[in-house]
């Protein structure tokens, strides 16, 4: 039986051999511990680049993004909820880009090409078919809340305004009217059927602090990507600048 091996032992060593093996093993062990410590120190002491995260960690975040983008399917939806499950006290967590009153002449500006900007009013958008989404809104901080939103499905918007060729690009960038908050989202996530150009919450027009008159709802992303008070929308093959990615967060932020 195998068990005897553990009672009888399976080898003999002289005291000298025993000491030698112990010392050699521990030398290796200490050397490897030091190597591991140096590797950790290197990661922690590496200066952060302009986007507030160490280049090594940013590379891994981007690697994760490439890997998980491959698995992404726009057919997978954020779990739908019933309107009755939606929280009526919708949490307000960010106000960047929303200082001051909104200009009454607000229009959505869609940059189709350099020097070719489409100007769209809120009423124009409301004429398009309305889509409602009730989902578990997830904040990068860790909380989540079931909320009910209404607006124009982004893919419908693309069709109606004949932006199909622009939608062949890799990213959509959005900027608040004052230019202080900006996000970039990859096109497959933007074209996911739950992604809305949103003008309603709980069946009512968006309040100011929820991004009146128009915000982005993109359930396959963390809340940091759901830009409030959209001013400018543009299309790009390179990553548009992103406020929270510049603060050290993952650019992709995909769920």
């Amino acid at each position, binding site marked *: 039986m195998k*068990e005897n091996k*553990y009672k009888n032992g399976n080898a*003999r060593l*002289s005291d000298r051999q025993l000491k030698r093996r112990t010392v050699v093993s*521990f030398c290796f062990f200490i050397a490897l511990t030091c190597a591991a410590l140096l590797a950790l120190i290197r990661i922690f002491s590496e200066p952060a680049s302009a986007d507030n995260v160490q280049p090594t960690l940013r590379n891994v975040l981007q690697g994760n993004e490439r890997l998980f983008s491959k698995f992404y399917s726009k057919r997978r*939806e954020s779990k739908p909820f019933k309107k009755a499950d939606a929280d009526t006290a919708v949490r307000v967590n960010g106000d960047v880009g929303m200082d001051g009153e909104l200009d009454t002449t607000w229009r959505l500006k869609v940059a189709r090409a350099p020097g070719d900007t489409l100007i769209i009013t809120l009423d124009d958008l409301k004429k398009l078919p309305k889509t409602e989404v009730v989902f578990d809104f997830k904040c990068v*901080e860790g909380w*989540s809340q079931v909320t009910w939103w209404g607006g124009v499905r982004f893919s419908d918007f693309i069709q109606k305004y004949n932006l199909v060729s622009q939608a062949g690009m890799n990213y959509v960038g959005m900027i608040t009217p004052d230019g202080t908050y900006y996000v970039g989202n990859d096109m497959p996530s933007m074209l996911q059927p739950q992604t809305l150009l949103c003008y309603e919450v709980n069946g009512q027009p968006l309040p100011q602090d929820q991004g009146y008159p128009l915000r982005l709802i993109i359930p396959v992303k963390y809340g940091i990507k759901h830009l409030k008070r959209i001013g400018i929308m543009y299309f790009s093959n390179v990553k548009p600048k992103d406020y929270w990615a510049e603060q050290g967060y993952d650019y992709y932020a995909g769920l």
Partner: protein
Amino acid sequence: MKRIVEKHPLAIRWMHWINFPVLAMMIWSGLLIYWANDIYRVGFGDTTLLKFFPQSFYDTLKIDHKLAGGMALHFFFMWFFFGNGIIYVLYTWISGEWRYLLPNRRSFTEAWLVLLHDLHLRKTAPPQDKYNAAQRIAYSSIIVMGFGSIATGLAIYKPVQFGWLCALCGGYEFARILHFALTIGYVLFFVVHIVQVILAGWNNFRAMVTGFEVIKHAPAAPQLPAPEPVPTEQKATNEGE
């Protein structure tokens, strides 16, 4: 001459020691993330017995306002935790080491006797192989917990793309609770593990570095003639934890 036994294969020792800093980094970066929404507590109604975590804890360890860095670290070290764990399971399976590790039919009753023995409430411990019954249960549980951390972690990380997994973990919020609870489990395991290693002593600890353990009280040499029938149950010599 000393009689020794080759206790821990080199691969197991490597993976054991790699796991230590990796898990430490996962727990550390996990704390940086948890801080941003630190809602868990133990209590009933409005009474909180234990808050995760008190402000002094954050202050002492300087955990506050590092969410972005915490996430970057967590999603870096997760690959090492995952890879090391997978290789460990494959190695244990293919090498046959699982025979020493998985609990068997007797383990669950014996583990109780081991516990009583370790608490000095019982003189003898049941005879054991490489690991005693309590160790078999503990070391197998920690692997199951590792799987749990990876499953709940992935459910939280990609709750839409892995919606089925998120549902399996009881939903997004519950998956987070499980992920957190498992981490508390690792910390408790670590505390008991360290205490046991200290109590077991140098011979046992050395084995995790060198691989071999010295057999202190070898049983009677088998080549001696045995005129009397051998007792069926040998007293365990408790060769180490």
